[in-house]
């Protein structure tokens, strides 16, 4: 039976927007779930990288909010998560669910999250340079039978969304410049996967605020809670890189979508594609 981890966290004000659990915090919970699962059933994250030369790069992260739950609706949150191997042994997939603990929302499921990670061989050199590999046999040997799902394929909702809006005129589009500071980065001086939704937030908020008072539909992107955030990571952005976020807003099936392409100033290929749905 797929093995799970579970952990609690008391609410603090920095975990929430006025409307819901912060996207960045939801992503942080996902990363912590992944590290806790590794630690419980394989080895601690530092041990994996240092002693087994095994790392993982996040290539997809997806959060869907299930029910409105604000800071005042619970005293804390509980997360339960598990990990499987998908794409015929190529990728790790984690699934996690966050529940309210205490308060008026006690026991309610707040959000579901998915993380997709590609295994890496991490060299022993100090720069932590890495190359993609399949899930190593030594890892597969430590998993339960139902933790390996050869038929499952990692979702790519942003790619799917881009196909759906292809040829559709956006409601608005814009661009903001940003910077990947070390505060937004991780141990290898590349962007921290969990911080990437903040670039989308920046792009969306700038677009909505610039649209002015005639754009009531667009302002739903500020007044309403997010239904979901999906990130597909293509290439890393490194610490100290200048970042450009190109944002387009679409009206789609009664929802408001913001599609973001995150670039650096160094090459034209997007480093990440992000879909926010309202």
């Amino acid at each position, binding site marked *: 039976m797929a093995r799970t981890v579970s952990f609690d966290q008391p609410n603090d004000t920095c975990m929430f927007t006025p409307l819901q659990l912060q996207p960045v915090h939801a992503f942080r919970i996902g990363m912590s779930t992944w590290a806790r699962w590794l630690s419980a059933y394989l080895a601690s994250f530092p041990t994996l990288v240092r002693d087994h030369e095994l790392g993982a790069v996040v290539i997809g992260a997806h959060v869907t909010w299930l029910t409105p739950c604000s800071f005042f609706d619970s005293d804390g949150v509980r997360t339960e998560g598990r990990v499987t191997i998908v794409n015929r042994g190529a990728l790790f997939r984690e699934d996690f669910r966050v529940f309210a603990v205490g308060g008026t929302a006690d026991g309610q499921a707040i959000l579901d999250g998915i993380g997709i990670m590609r295994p890496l061989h991490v060299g022993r050199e100090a720069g932590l*340079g890495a190359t993609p590999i399949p899930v190593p046999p030594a890892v597969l040997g430590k998993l339960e039978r139902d933790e390996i799902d050869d038929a499952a394929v990692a979702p790519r909702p942003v790619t799917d969304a881009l196909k759906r809006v292809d040829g559709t005129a956006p409601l608005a589009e814009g661009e903001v410049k940003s910077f990947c500071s070390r505060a937004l980065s991780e141990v290898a001086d590349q962007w921290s996967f969990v911080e990437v939704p903040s670039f989308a937030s920046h792009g969306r908020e700038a677009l909505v605020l610039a649209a002015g008072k005639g754009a009531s539909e667009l302002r739903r992107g500020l007044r309403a809670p997010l239904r979901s955030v999906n990130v597909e990571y293509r290439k890393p952005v490194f*610490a100290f890189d200048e970042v450009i976020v190109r944002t387009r807003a679409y009206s789609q099936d009664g929802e408001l979508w913001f599609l973001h392409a995150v670039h650096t100033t160094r090459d034209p290929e997007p480093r990440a594609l992000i879909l926010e749905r309202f």
Partner: protein
Amino acid sequence: MKFRFSGTLMRFVEFEREQEFAAATIREAIDGLVAKHPQLQNVLFTASGSLRQTHRLFLNGDQLGNDELARAVGEQDVVEVLTAIAGG
């Protein structure tokens, strides 16, 4: 010629994005670079002296192979040193 660095490599060059060397070839410039920043030797190169698979060199935008380090360079040339991916 100039080397240009980013991201995870910046801490090995004292956070100076550009490093300039007077050299006739890329190999000669690399020797100067590594002499100035010895930690880079192990970060960028294997024990046998080949560029690690995890890093890439681009001369004025064109990727260089391991067998192209003897190429002549001039004052205006720029070699960008990139990490393909880092493990975190």
